[in-house]
């Protein structure tokens, strides 16, 4: 057994995993505030990347201006989605809300591609592709940057959830009705969570777009993001970070063992297996809240 190679796999896996967390934070934020499964995060991520591209490449803005501007636009869009679509279905059975977010996802993907076309483009962040060596271990620079962004966002949200607005969001997450009765604007809180998730989608879109190109494949992150979110517990941001690292390592190392056995492409299988096992063994995930159901 080559330990250096295994460590390299594990470290790169963990970095990739943090990028999954970046995606999953968007799902967790919304679930936390409104118990809505956000299956549209893939479409949002894709849209975020395309908006950045439209501002930087098509409109010619510099990247440091284009990304914040895209974040502002997506912030507004997130509010809009909640106002137009989600609010009217509040309190409906989960199957309808699930279908609504799936429909949103399909719509966002279709519209984005209809407007900007499906050819893969690069964000050109300016991160060099030179290999970066940590001792003997090869690490990809862009993954390192992405992992840094994920951790920074995590820290930012930790601080945010201690602020006045953040505490309101936590109260909404804890009990819808009770927050309503003490005068917290639940609708605005839920809208804010959608807006924040859309901003996170810009970050995820830019990083992932730099790694694999901005195209339709960005929305395929959904299964991995969902797995991370469920494994960490759907309402825990810390869980999303830790679960991302775990999934990344398991996926990278496991694929190295399994690929020769099954002839390649075992990553999807591993992710799906992790999702199924998590739900079967511990549905509320590592750090999620365990709800007790009453008749």
């Amino acid at each position: 057994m080559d330990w250096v190679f295994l460590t390299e796999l594990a470290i790169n896996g963990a970095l990739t995993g943090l990028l999954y967390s970046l995606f999953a934070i968007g799902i967790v934020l919304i679930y936390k505030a409104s118990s809505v499964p956000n299956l549209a995060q893939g479409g949002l991520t894709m849209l975020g990347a395309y908006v950045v591209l439209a501002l930087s490449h098509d409109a010619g803005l510099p990247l440091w201006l284009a990304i914040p501007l895209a974040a502002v636009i997506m912030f507004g869009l997130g509010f809009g989605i909640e106002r137009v679509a989600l609010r009217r279905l509040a309190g409906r059975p989960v199957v309808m809300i699930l279908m609504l977010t799936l429909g949103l996802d399909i719509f966002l993907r279709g519209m984005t591609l209809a407007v900007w076309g499906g050819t893969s483009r690069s964000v050109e962040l300016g991160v060099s592709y030179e290999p970066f060596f940590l001792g003997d271990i090869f690490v990809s620079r862009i993954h390192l940057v992405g992992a840094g962004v994920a951790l920074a966002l995590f820290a930012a949200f930790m601080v945010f959830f201690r602020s006045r607005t953040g505490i309101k969001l936590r109260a909404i997450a804890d009990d819808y009705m009770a927050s309503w009765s003490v005068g917290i604007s639940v609708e605005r809180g839920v809208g804010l969570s959608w807006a924040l998730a859309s901003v996170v989608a810009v970050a995820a879109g830019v990083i992932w777009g730099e790694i694999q190109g901005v195209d339709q494949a960005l929305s395929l992150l959904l299964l991995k993001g969902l797995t991370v979110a469920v494994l960490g517990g759907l309402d825990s941001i810390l869980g999303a970070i830790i679960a991302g690292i775990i999934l990344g390592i398991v996926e990278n190392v496991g694929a190295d063992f399994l690929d020769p056995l099954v002839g390649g492409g075992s990553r999807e299988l591993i992710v799906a297996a992790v999702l199924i096992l998590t739900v079967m063994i511990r549905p509320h995930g590592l750090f999620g809240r365990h709800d007790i159901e009453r008749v």
Partner: protein
Amino acid sequence: MFYRLSGVYRVNYVSDGRMFKVPADRNLAVVFLFLGLAAPFIVPSLYLNSYMLPWLIWTAAALGLNLVTGWAGQLHLGYAAVMAVGAYSAIHAARFGLPWEIALVIGGLASSVIGSLFAFAALRVKGLYLALTTLAMQFVMDWVLTHSPAISGGSHASLQAPTLELLGQEIVSDTGYYYVAFGWCVLVTIFMLNLKRTGLGRALVAVREKDYAAAILGVNSFYYKILAFATSSFIAGVSGALLVATFFFLAAPEQFSVNVSIQVLAMVIIGGLASVIGSYFGVALILLVPGLVNGVVTSASQALGMQVNVETLAHIPNAVYGALIVVILLIEPLGLGKLYGNIRDYLMVWPFDQLRK
């Protein structure tokens, strides 16, 4: 007035348990049955085979999903995988030389067995988590299909279906294919219409409303959940097999990918949960409207002399499909079946609105 209630007295249990309580409903059903039978002589064969036939088979499939999602209340995002099991087993059986009647039943049974595996997830979790588990199972099935040449048919990953032959008749004409699809759809519809009149249907509804409460009332929710999954999987398997045998002629893994699962669920929810007529509407809308819109956009852009990007045209149907789901859910979360029900309720008492309850 249009749905006349005069002379309809429910004075005993038999009359109260009728399938069609209002004669007009029964007459409508009979009219549409005859229209369906006569369709090959009325509708041009192009429309018959590229619109009517897939509509009927997808309706049968959607009704199967409606059984498990609408009646039993279990979310299922892996329905296409179950259809794939049926399609592939039936075609392999038919290629092996078994008669198609037996091959179809084998396909259905194989689907039932695999589909019941999904039910074991349903015994542990429900709602959102069940949806995610079935979604993951769909990915596993997709992976198995694309990675096992023995199932998917070698390097080209496609499997030719042998000529369909039922009851000693070789079926090769468009009309023949249509009647096979029509027959299957009618069978499934009759089954689903009768479901609410049976103990099984009532038990499923009890499980849907609250499985713990149903268990307290003596309904074995464990048993009924598995039964619901197995039955719906049987319908899925046969529908999948017929879809390949009469429409695609070639089985390929992409025909049963995760997008298809989402599409069938969209058909069911747009149509209305636990609504039979709704499933017909939902399938028609999801299947036909994106193509229609694309045709309209193309001709409009030509008429206006505007040059529309090819890529834009290719993605508009998808955007429309997503928008349809969102808009219909916002207008009427209970689906098209409910919209139809509203119209029917209105017409039932029409000129005498003051009678409305």
